[in-house]
C-alpha cells in the first residue's frame, strides 16, 4: 500500500464517517441560533468556533459534508450510468454511425465551459441541490464515455475478445461480460477524480447561491456567509475552506493511490 493510498483513504473516510455520523449525532444543533454566542473562535464548547448566527461550525461542517458528498456522488453516478454504456456502445461498432454521433456529442459538451452551463441550468430551473447535481453530472458523462471508449477499443483487439466473438456471443453481450469487467479499474480511479472535481464544483455553485438552499448547510454557502465576516472572525472563512481543501486533496491522493495499486498505466483524464 502506497503512502498516497493510505493518506487519501484516511482523509476521505474521516469526511464520510463525519457525514454519516451527522445523521444520528452532531455536537450541537445546526438550526438553533444563539446570537449572543456569535463569531466565537474555537473553544472547548465549540471545537471549531461559531458562525454569525452563533451556530456550531463543526456541526455545520458535518451536515454540510452530507450535501457535498451526496451531490458529487450522484453526479458521478449520472456520469458513469450514462457515459459508460455510451462509451461501450461506441467502441463496439468503431467508426459506425453511433460512434460518430456519440463522439461528436462528447466534443460538443467538452466545448461548453462547464461552470457557465451549470450556472445557466441552475439559474433557469431554480437553484437547488438537485439542479446542481444535474449540472455537474452532465459534464461527467463525456468524461466517462471517452475513457470507456478508449479502453474498450484496445480490448476489442485482444485475443480473448476474438475468442468470445468466435463462440457466437453478440457485441452487446461481449461488452457487458468481458469489456466492462476489464475497464472497471479505470472507472474506479476516474470516478474518484470526478468525485473530487464534483466537491469543488458544488462548493463553487453553492458559494454563488446556486447550490443547496438554506436551511440545508453547505460548505460553499458557509464561505459565502463568511465573506463579510472575514475581518471580524477569520476562522469562519478559514475552517470551511480548509475542510474543502482537505476533502479534495484526500480524494485526489486516493485516486492516485488506487491507480498505482490497480494499474499504473491507466489512462485517466484530468480536466
Amino acid at each position, binding site marked *: 500500500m502506497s503512502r498516497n493510498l493510505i493518506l487519501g483513504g484516511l482523509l476521505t473516510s474521516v469526511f464520510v464517517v463525519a457525514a454519516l455520523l451527522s445523521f444520528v449525532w452532531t455536537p450541537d444543533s445546526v438550526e438553533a441560533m444563539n446570537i449572543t454566542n456569535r463569531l466565537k473562535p474555537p473553544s472547548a464548547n465549540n471545537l471549531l468556533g461559531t458562525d454569525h448566527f452563533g451556530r456550531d461550525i463543526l456541526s455545520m461542517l458535518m451536515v454540510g459534508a452530507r450535501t457535498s458528498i451526496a451531490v458529487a456522488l450522484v453526479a458521478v453516478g449520472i456520469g458513469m450510468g450514462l457515459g459508460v454504456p455510451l462509451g461501450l456502445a461506441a467502441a463496439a461498432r468503431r467508426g459506425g454511425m453511433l460512434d460518430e454521433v456519440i463522439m461528436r456529442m462528447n466534443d460538443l459538451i467538452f466545448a461548453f465551459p462547464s461552470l457557465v452551463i451549470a450556472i445557466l441550468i441552475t439559474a433557469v430551473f431554480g437553484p437547488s441541490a438537485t439542479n446542481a447535481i444535474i449540472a455537474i453530472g452532465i459534464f461527467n458523462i463525456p468524461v466517462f464515455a471517452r475513457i470507456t471508449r478508449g479502453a474498450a477499443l484496445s480490448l476489442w483487439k485482444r485475443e480473448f475478445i476474438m475468442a468470445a466473438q468466435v463462440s457466437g456471443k453478440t457485441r452487446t453481450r461481449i461488452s457487458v461480460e468481458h469489456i466492462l469487467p476489464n475497464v472497471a479499474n479505470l472507472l474506479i480511479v476516474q470516478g474518484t477524480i470526478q468525485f473530487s472535481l464534483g466537491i469543488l464544483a458544488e462548493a463553487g455553485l453553492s458559494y454563488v447561491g446556486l447550490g443547496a438552499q438554506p436551511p440545508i448547510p453547505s460548505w460553499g454557502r458557509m*464561505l459565502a456567509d463568511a465573506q463579510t465576516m472575514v475581518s471580524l472572525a477569520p476562522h469562519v472563512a478559514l475552517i470551511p475552506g480548509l475542510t474543502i481543501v482537505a476533502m479534495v486533496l484526500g480524494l485526489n491522493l486516493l485516486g492516485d493511490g488506487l491507480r498505482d495499486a490497480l494499474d499504473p498505466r491507466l489512462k485517466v483524464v484530468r480536466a
Partner: protein
Amino acid sequence: MLGYIVKRLISLAISLIVASVVIFVVVEIAPGDPASFMLGINAQPDTVAALRTELGLDQSKFDRYLSWVGGMLTGDFGTSYTYRTPVAQMIVDRMWVSLPLALFALTLSTLIAFPAGIFAAARRGGPGDLAVTGATQLGVAIPNFWFAMMLVLIFAIQLRWFSAGGFPGWEKGFWGGMKALTLPAIALALPQAAILTRVMRSSLLDILGEDFMRTARAKGLSARQALWRHGLRNALIPVLTIIGLQFAFLLAGAIIIEQVFFLPGLGRLIFQAITQRDLIVVESVVMLLVFAVIMVNFLVDLAYAAVDPRLRTRV
C-alpha cells in the same frame, strides 16, 4: 492542410449551431414570462401583451431563434429587458474588465508553471521535484474563490496593500486598474498554474526519454544543455494546447472570482441578469462564452495541425 481546414470549419459551424439551439431551448423552457416579471404582479393584461409585442415575445419560437442568431451574426445582441440598452454595448463594457483579468491570470499562470515544471522535470524524483508535485496537488485542491478570500484577508484587510474589491475603471489610469485586478488574477491563476505545471513536467519527462535526447547527450551536450536546446522546444506543443484551453476557461472561471471582488465584469452581468430574469442578456453572454471556448479550441487545433502534419488526418 486545406482539406483539414474545411473539415474543421464544418464541424465548427455544426458545434456553434447546436450550441446556440441548446442555449435557446434551455432559456426558452425557463419558467416565468419576462414581460409579466418586468411589470410586476399588478400589471394589466393588455399592458403585458403590449410589452410582449414590443420585446418580440409574441412571435413563434422558431422566428425568435432566427432573429436572435441573425442579430448576433450582425453584432446586434438585442435590447436588455431591464435596462432597455443594447446588450452588445453592455457586453463590450464588461469585457474591458473580464478580458484583461483573464489575460492577466493566464500570464501569471504561465510565468509560474514554466519555471516550476522545468525545475521539477530536471530533478525528477529528487526533493525539488517532490516539493513541486506536492504543491500542485495542493493547488488543484484549493477552491479559487476561497483562495481569493484569503488573499483579501491577508493583503487587503491585514496589510492594506490592495483594496478588497471594486474596480476604479481604466479611465482613472492603467496602473490603478491593474492594481484592482492583481488579487483576482492571482486567485484565478493558482489552480491553472498547478495544472499547467503538471502538464509541463510530464511533457518534458516524456521528451527526455526520446531517442533524439540520447543523441544530444551522445554528441556531448550536458543534461542541462540538451534539456534547454532540444527538450524544451519539443515539450512545448502539448503545453501550448493547454494554455489555449485555459484562456477560455479563465474567461468563464472569472465569473465566480468577479463575485468575490465585486468586479463589474461578465460574471456580475450574468448574475444580475439572472436575478432580474433578463433572459436575453443571459442567453447572449452564455453564447458569447461558449463561442469563445469553441473558437479557441478550433484555433489551437489548427495551430497544432500546422506544426504537426500527422494530426491532419485525424479529424
